[in-house]
């Protein structure tokens, strides 16, 4: 009975809502506490703010202490994952004794920028920097080197999962730990040089003085060796992460042509391009983009073909990007391009090394981003977006046929629904009489005006397309097609749409799949809707207006200084050998002129010397 009353009371009497505390992000007034502790903030600020940070250090020492305590409380959970935190733990157990000492160390460590002679300082700095008991996959291994009857302590730091453990064991730890006592005939007195020259038999060693750089190297998969008494650190490049191998390119399929595609590793990608070009003039400059992520990028160009000002401009833009993290070349593309609101892409992103190589030989510049299989090539013109990688590999007649079909498909993908709406709503006299009666008969039972009909079908098609991407496995594409057919058939049977509309929407969709460049496909999908509306407003006149406005928009765009509709927009001097239709390979003498390359001739006028020799015979 009491329960019943309680229930009624709960229902009818107003109660204050319970305080459910959700996680609220604290606002950063003093800067984030964790950052203070590990010194990351200082590391990224300029020198002018160092004084401020010193003051903040004093205030936050107590915070640091609390964090250390909480860290040790969590220690129990983490020991299974972080087996080598012994060093860190040891320092914490001595808290009570060496609190003062620790303060001093933290103070010092935060100020350190160069590798110090003392190993302990270095280790403390590293633990501070990597938040060591919390950060589970960073490992520090301390060991001792016996060289010339002296025992020196040393440590190696690496990130588990990013290094090849076998190589590290064999090439770094084993020689230093075991073989260092072998009689070495060298008379070197300096331990550091001795270690580098003779004791670490690895193919890429860097000697670094600055701790910041050491940290960067370790972040990217190297291991760093610190030796007590030596004020330099040695980093060995032992990258050995798991990655996808070199497989078929996913988005650009060809029948005739190489089937290799880029993968996510920078060095593999540059190697794939170098494998094709074999040219010592091919320069691959290293840059890093992103303040925190320091994503390595490579800028490729051929030195004596590409225009210097183009290369400088690309470099200037890349260096002027001020973001925290860079994830993919897609983001880099949006940061580099001239006009983000333009529907059409101004940079080509491709997955095929042979395509990048051929564009480099034309005088373009490529940017590879670590972690993305799409390589950016710039500058580009609108005609380049219509080229498919296979065009150069097949013979002259087929290549031109393919180009004609592709251009027709692209024009239809853009204009066909708009033209249909314009013709059936405004220009009835254009339709042949038989077709007119067929359309009208089928439209008689449809309740919607034709504009609404076509919008429904287009939207349905876009839904199917978007959904088809996310269906896993082999079912994906099949379901998309079947879904489209069944949907269309059912819609016709239900008298929602007329049958001729299904054909139009299907042809449009297929045409948009024929667009070789992915981004351009998206662009034309958007513009198609604009043309439908224009066609419904003013018929052919509206479509002409739209075409003109789009033409103006395109011709006023520049992609890295190259007008977008070259070589026909501004009529350039160069040859039209490979723009719309392709001349046979032995006729393509010159590079396109609008890139202002240094060396214009690709091949001499007679590139088939064997024919000339035959004639002379």
């Amino acid at each position, binding site marked *: 009975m009491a329960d019943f009353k309680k229930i009624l009371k709960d229902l009818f009497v107003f109660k204050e809502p319970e305080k459910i505390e959700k996680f609220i992000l604290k606002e950063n007034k003093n800067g984030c506490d964790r950052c203070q502790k590990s010194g990351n903030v200082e590391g990224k600020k300029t020198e002018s703010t160092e004084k401020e940070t010193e003051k903040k250090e004093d205030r936050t020492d107590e915070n640091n202490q609390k964090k250390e305590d909480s860290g040790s409380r969590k220690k129990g959970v983490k020991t299974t994952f972080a087996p080598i935190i012994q060093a860190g733990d040891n320092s914490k157990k001595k808290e009570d004794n060496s609190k003062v000492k620790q303060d001093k160390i933290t103070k010092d460590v935060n100020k350190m920028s160069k590798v110090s002679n003392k190993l302990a300082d270095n280790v403390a700095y590293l633990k501070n920097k990597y938040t060591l008991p919390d950060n589970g996959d960073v490992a520090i291994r301390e060991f001792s080197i016996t060289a010339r009857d002296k025992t020196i302590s040393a440590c190696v730091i690496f990130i588990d999962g990013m290094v090849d453990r076998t190589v590290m064991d064999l090439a770094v730890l084993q020689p230093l730990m075991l073989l260092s006592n072998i009689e070495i005939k060298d008379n070197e007195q300096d331990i550091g040089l001795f270690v580098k020259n003779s004791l670490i038999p690895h193919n890429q060693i860097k000697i670094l003085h600055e701790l910041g750089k050491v940290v960067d190297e370790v972040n990217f998969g190297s291991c760093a060796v610190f030796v007590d008494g030596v004020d330099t650190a040695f980093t060995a490049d032992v990258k050995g992460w798991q990655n996808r191998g070199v497989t078929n390119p996913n988005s650009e399929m060809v029948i005739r042509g190489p089937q290799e595609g880029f993968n996510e590793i920078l060095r593999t990608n540059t190697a794939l391009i170098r494998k094709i070009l074999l040219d010592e003039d091919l320069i691959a400059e290293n840059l890093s983009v992103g303040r925190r992520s320091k994503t390595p990028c490579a800028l490729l160009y051929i030195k004596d073909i590409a225009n210097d000002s183009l290369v400088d401009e690309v470099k200037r833009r890349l260096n002027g990007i001020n973001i925290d993290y860079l994830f993919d070349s897609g983001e880099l593309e949006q940061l580099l391009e001239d006009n983000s609101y333009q529907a059409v892409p101004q940079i080509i992103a491709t997955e095929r090394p042979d395509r990048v190589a051929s564009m480099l030989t034309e005088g373009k510049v490529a940017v590879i981003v670590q972690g993305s299989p799409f390589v950016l090539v710039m500058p580009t013109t609108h005609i380049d977006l219509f080229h498919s990688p296979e065009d150069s590999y097949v013979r002259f007649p087929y290549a031109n046929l393919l180009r004609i079909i592709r251009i027709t498909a692209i024009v239809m993908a853009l204009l066909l629904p708009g033209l249909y709406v314009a*013709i059936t709503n*405004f*220009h009835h*006299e*254009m339709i*042949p*009489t*038989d077709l007119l009666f067929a359309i009208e008969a089928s439209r008689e039972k449809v309740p919607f005006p034709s504009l609404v009909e076509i919008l429904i079908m287009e939207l349905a098609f876009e839904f199917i397309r978007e959904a088809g991407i996310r269906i896993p496995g082999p079912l994906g594409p099949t379901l998309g097609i079947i879904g489209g057919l069944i949907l269309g058939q059912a819609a016709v049977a239900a008298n929602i749409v007329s049958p001729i509309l299904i054909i139009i929407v299907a042809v449009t969709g297929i045409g948009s799949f024929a667009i070789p460049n992915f981004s351009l496909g998206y662009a034309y999908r958007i513009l198609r809707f604009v043309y439908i509306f224009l066609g419904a407003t*003013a*018929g*052919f*006149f*509206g*479509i*002409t*207006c739209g*075409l*003109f*406005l789009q*033409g*103006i*928009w395109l*011709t*006023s765009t520049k992609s890295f200084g190259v*007008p977008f*509709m070259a070589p*026909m*927009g*501004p*009529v350039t001097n160069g040859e039209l050998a490979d723009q719309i239709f392709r001349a046979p390979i032995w006729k393509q003498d010159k590079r396109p002129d609008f890139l202002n390359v240094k060396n214009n001739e690709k091949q001499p006028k007679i590139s088939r010397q064997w024919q000339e020799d035959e004639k002379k015979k």
Partner: protein
Amino acid sequence: MDKVCFGKVEAIFIIMNAMSIQLFLGFTRRMAGSGGTAGWMIPIYTSIIALILFFFISKLYKSFEGKDIIDVAEIAGGSFGRILVGLIFIVDYIFILSIMLRIFGEDIKIFALSQSPLSFVIIFFIIVMVVASYTGVESIVRLNTLIMPVVIIGFLIVVIGNIKFYDATNLLPIFGDGAYKVFIKEIPRISIYSAFSFIFFLVPFIGKYKDFKSIGYWSLIFSSIVLTFGTIAYFLVVPYPTSTENFIPYLHMARYVNYGRFFQRIESIFVLMWTMSAFVYLSAGKFFLLYMIKKTFKLKYYRPLILPIAIIIFTLCFMPQSLMAAVTLEGEVVRRFAWIVTFIVPLVVLIVAKLVNRKREGEKSNEKV
């Protein structure tokens, strides 16, 4: 500073487009009205007269390379000369642009969008003109180079598709309304080439100044060929005097194209192509108008003027009461007097400027001595 400049081919195309656009309006009808069956001779011999005039102009222009006509007017008469010449051209351009805009809009209304109010149709033109003026003359000229082949192909399809209606006897009797009337009375018809005044404002944009002469000659020759050819094609199909009835001759010709049961009544596609040409003409005209105003009154920017001038032209184009009034206005006023503005004014200005220059040089050499 990057100077906007374009090449010879593009300059020729844009002037040719401006002069040939009237072929798609009532040009051939007027030729039939003036000359009877000999109307096709009018474009030819007026172009010869225009070429002679241009010869003199280009000779005088040699010492003023790189300056457009307003700068030359400044040299000739100081600020007063500059403003006077500028105002003449501005009034001329505003007048022509608003009439042409009205005629284009009405033509579209006649056969495509007959129920829509006129302002609805003209708004499209105005929007295109405004957007194109914002992006500058570079993109207009580049787009024109892309569009010209399409328009020419459309024109050729109409001309070739009418072959089965060609009847050579429609061009007889040879001298139509009489040699006197055709050759002497219709000399003011040189206003056909009144759009040639574009070239005087194009001069600063041309890459190499030596191209000025060849641009002038080639554009005149090409457009006279196109106009003559187009007029002959029309006369072959429609006999005189029926040819003076048709309001938009090429529209009628497009309607006659008939091959089998499928390829019929395709005039709407040709509308598409002609409208593109009209857009380019209007956008280029508006840009040069703004450029003129900027130069005449020594303004720093021309962009703030785009919308106001668009509104002025929009309002002016509604002033004629009906399409017939607009066409009469164009036929009588523009085509009879525009040649003065296009050819005579630059000649006078150049002669005066040359005299002033010589006088100045004379003074300078006097001073030196």
